[in-house]
């Protein structure tokens, strides 16, 4: 490597010791987070993207939020409509199921972004279960409404 011929800024021995210590500490915290931690410990939580195991024939959920407005039209309440990401809905799904009136938050977020749209009468979280057989999608699906809330004013 030609740059090896050039002059060098060396670290002081203190600078080196501090850096080695910081590296060791950082690795220790990250390892602890991976072994015992959870997403809550961001940025040192486990790198658990796509880490769950699903049996070869387990159906795959595709979650969506939708609503019905006062004129009876189906309204897509996805990220583009409300600013709430799908993964955020899924992450807090149990809280919505325990207390369906929390779906008011979704209706309000939609209302703020679409002040002129007809008001919503119902908000619901629907999971489309896609059939998977032998690790491959078959194209069949069923819809399951996990929670729904009639808008109260």
């Amino acid at each position, binding site marked *: 490597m030609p740059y090896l011929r050039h002059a*060098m800024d*060396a670290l002081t021995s203190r600078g080196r010791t501090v850096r080695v210590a910081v590296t060791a500490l950082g690795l220790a915290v990250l390892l602890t987070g991976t072994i015992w931690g959870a997403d809550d410990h961001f940025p040192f939580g*486990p790198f*658990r*993207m796509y880490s769950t*195991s*699903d049996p070869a024939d*387990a159906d795959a959920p595709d979650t969506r939020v939708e609503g019905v407005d006062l004129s009876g039209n189906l309204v897509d309440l996805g990220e583009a409509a409300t*600013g709430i990401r799908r993964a955020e809905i899924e992450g807090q799904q149990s809280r919505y199921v325990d207390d369906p009136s929390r779906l008011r938050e979704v209706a309000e977020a939609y209302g703020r972004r679409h002040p002129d749209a007809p008001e919503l009468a119902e908000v619901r979280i629907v999971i489309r279960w896609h059939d998977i057989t032998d690790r491959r*999608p078959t194209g069949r699906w069923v819809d399951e409404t996990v929670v729904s809330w009639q808008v109260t004013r």
Partner: protein
Amino acid sequence: MSRWLTEAVPRGRVAAFRTLVYLFVAADLVVFTPWVRDRVDVPGNLYQPLFIGRVLPLPTPTATLVSVIFWALLVLALLAATGRAPRLLGWTVFALYLEWMIIAMSYGKVDHDRFALLVALAVLPTAGRARHGDLTRTEAGGWALRVTQISVICTYFLAAWAKFRFGGLDWATGSVLAKAIIRRGTDLADLIAQVPHLLLVAQFGILAFELLSPLVFVLPERWRLAMVGFFYSFHLVTISTITISFAPHLVAMTSFLPLEKVRPVIALRRLLARRSTIDKRRLNPDPLPADTPPVPDPAAP
């Protein structure tokens, strides 16, 4: 070990990496994660602060707070990309970006693609001043790049660990890729999903590559670059099939590359200089006298 951890690199490499990382921070705000600004439309009680947000006295984000962080971060990141005041600007950008990420990840979904970028932002201020093209070697800069590289590889290796922890040994024979394709697959992915056993082979392949990724540190230079090239190609496939970009991780991974050799500004200047010489010749078709000095080379020191 401590020699390896602080192996000197040219200052020019640190300068190029610094510019790239801070430009990415600015781009991330407007291109990759503009949804963070939408958090303002999400009611405050959906805000479930992370552990770090509960330990530090961070306020619940409001429209004003998010706007202030957005604009401050955008301006300061662009300033930091020039390489000026590397410590002051570097630490400020790190603090603001960390807060930006804490806000982003506090609504029920945590992303796992930015650990190495956060590490790069945390260590770049310690690398000191570095001018583009400077071949003087620096150990402080070498450490900054080395720990970023380690974070990149940790993201892979510990992801395999997490698969064993959360998915168990069955992960490789499960249907995780089929599920990913259903949820966010492209047409290409739908096509791939129809090939028998391909997803199963891919799952074993992913585990193997994640577990073997630390080998990048013991390979000779040429093979090391080839392996990093393979990492990039893996992400090209995940983008084109399940639209997972991992952009911050890809930027941090440039810490493996001899970035000092890429000089876009000089290449542009040379191109312009060549153009103007050709134009001059066209205007003045007389052959140049032999003693005319050549066009100055802007790359010359």
